Each structure stands twice: as structure tokens, then as C-alpha cells.
């Protein structure tokens, strides 16, 4: 999709439904909640890294259907330790442990002695 202009919208999400990078549907509030918050999050359309093809409704990984990849793996013989989508936990279990991509990093400018993972 091509958007000639970008617009920042502040949307209220008390249940913390959405995560960084998700594509969500928002609704305008009848009244402004604060000076900035004008919308609320209705629901998450497409979570980041869990792509669904809108036409077939199948899961996709970078140009290939997940079913097709699984079928190929089955022919070769599945392994014990291989990654499985059914038993994989939902996104966020490595957040703040090994995955720091939900926040912006910055260049370290001061040696405070405290551990700050976001200071690169």
C-alpha cells in the first residue's frame, strides 16, 4: 500500500490489545479523552509477524503459505526439536529478556553504572 502522507493518531487501549508494529482498527471517540487521545482501538486486524492472506485466509511466511512449508517438511520427515507453530507461545514471551524491539533504542551517552538494555 502507498500512503502519500502519514498521520499520527493517539488511540486509547486500556486492555493492551496491540503490540508494537500491529495493524489495528481504530474508532473515533465521541469526545476527546485527553488533549491528544482522540481514538480508541477496536481490534487488532493483523498482528506483526503473523501474516494472514486476506483472500484465502491462510497463514503466510514471506511469500509462502505455511501449509506448503509444513507439507514439504512432512515429506522429508519431521524432527523432534524443530519449531512448531501449534506449541509456540504467543508473541511477547521474550520481551525485555532477549527481544528489545518493542521500544526505541538510543546511543549510550552516560556511564551511570545501571544496566540499561536500550542504551546501545
Amino acid at each position, binding site marked *: 500500500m502507498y500512503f502519500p502522507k502519514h498521520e499520527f493518531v493517539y488511540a486509547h487501549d486500556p486492555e493492551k490489545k496491540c503490540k508494537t*508494529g500491529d495493524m489495528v482498527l481504530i474508532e473515533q471517540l465521541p469526545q476527546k479523552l485527553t488533549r491528544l487521545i482522540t481514538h480508541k482501538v477496536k481490534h487488532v486486524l493483523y*498482528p*506483526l*509477524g*503473523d*501474516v494472514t492472506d486476506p483472500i484465502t485466509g491462510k497463514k503466510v*511466511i*514471506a511469500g509462502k503459505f505455511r501449509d506448503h512449508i509444513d507439507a514439504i*517438511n512432512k515429506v*522429508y*520427515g*519431521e*524432527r523432534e*526439536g*524443530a*519449531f512448531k*507453530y501449534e506449541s*509456540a*507461545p*504467543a*508473541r511477547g*514471551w*521474550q520481551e525485555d529478556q*532477549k*527481544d*528489545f*524491539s518493542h521500544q*526505541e*533504542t*538510543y*546511543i*549510550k*551517552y*552516560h*556511564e*551511570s553504572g545501571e544496566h540499561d*538494555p*536500550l*542504551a*546501545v
Partner: protein
Amino acid sequence: MNNYRFILKEIEKLTLNKTFVRNYAFKSDLKIKWVRPEVIPSYKPGKSGDLGGVPPIEKQQFMLDFKNSKELQTANENVKKLFTLEFAPKKFTNRIYFSSLIEQVKRHDYDVGSIEVKMAKWTGVIRAFQDIMERFPTNRRLKVKLKELIDKRKKHLKYLRRWDYKKFEWLLATLNLEYKPHPPKYHSITRKESLQKLTDKYCEDIVQSRLKQYHSQLEIEQIAFLEEKIRTLAFIRDEEKHCGVQHTVTEEEIDEIRKQLDELKQKRDCIA
């Protein structure tokens, strides 16, 4: 007339001395000490995101290509010894390590090109190179190769995150990697800018601590305020009744505040 001008100038000087003037050579008298962060080379594990290095590998095992050899099983002891890692170059030990990493993430037995396998291979090579860099820090060619490989792995981790988040997180956990995105802007660290940021942080901390203090103070006054409110509303209700004017305060309104007060008192008792 001149006298007046003189007096006016003097007054100006006095007022100027009192007000705060910030000239070009302004120096903050806050007790903030800035420590310049140590520069970590990009190839070090701290920057590349490798949380674990190469573990010690047993030297008594056979080289990878001869592991399943039938002839070697029945061979002479000395021949067997010659085919162990002890007598082989370092690259054969590394191969064992790479294959052990790949074994953890393989999709199937014939998998050599999936993104998991690629990532495991790169991770193994990066860790082996990092070990060499520790021993030979002046090896520039290796440094460049290592940096390029680290950047490539990071780029592919970025793609994987966008395409398949669950696998991305699983890979980070199994390969013991850390992923931090690039900062929005790369710039050199200067004393002035760092001090500005630290001062901003200092001021923000003061604001937050004072707000917290004010909040706790208001919480203490809450019970007394509600009691006063009930009394005032009751007084207004009685006065209106007495004067025969239209009632603006209802009984329910006062009851609601009483209820609020009781709940608050109960909550405080529970905490205490």
C-alpha cells in the same frame, strides 16, 4: 535631568543583577557528573548480541566427517587417535560446534537452507571469529568480515521479526541471542549534549518526585475533606429547607459521599 538618567541607570543595573541572566558562557552549577561511556568495538559479543560463546568441546571425539565411519571403529588405536579433534586443525572443532547449533534448529534431516539453519550457521561462525579476534585484535580483515556477518545476521533477524514473530522469538531463545533494533539516528557522543540530556532527566526526576509527594499529601487529606464535604452539604440542605428555596442538594448525594468515605476508611484499615 542628567541626575534622573543616572538614577534610572542605577535602578536598571540593580534589577538586572537580581534577575537571572544566561549568557554565552553559562555554566550549570548542578552537581551532575558526566562519565563518558567506554567505546565497545562492534565485533564484541556485547554489541553483536551473542549471550553465550563457544563452549569447551571435548577433544577426544572424532572429526565430523569420520564420526560414522565403520572402518575407524575397527582401526588401530593410533589411527583412531589421529582422527580425533586433538590432532586436527581448529576448523574441525569449529565444524562440530556449528553442526551442534544447526542440529538444535533444523526443520528436517536434509535441511540446509532454511532461515533457522542459516542463522545457526552464522551464529556459530560469528562466535568462532570472536574468539580469534580476542587473540589477534589487529587482524583487520577478520574484523571486517566479522562485522559484515554480524550486520547480515541482524538484518535477517529484522526480516524474520516482520515475517514470523513466533519463530523469531524461538530462535533468539534457542541460539541464546539478543536482538536490539538500530537507534533511529547514529551520532557521536558529545559532552554538551550528554549534559543537556542529564540535566533534563534531573529536572524531570524532581518534577516527578514533587508530584508524588503532593499526591500522597492529598491522599492523607482525603478523609478530612470528605467529612467536611458531608457537613457542608448537610448545612446547605438544612438552610434551603429552612428558607423554603428550591432544593439543590439531594439526600442521595450525601449518602453517596458517606459510602465513599466508608469505603476509603475500610481500605486504609486494610492497609494498616
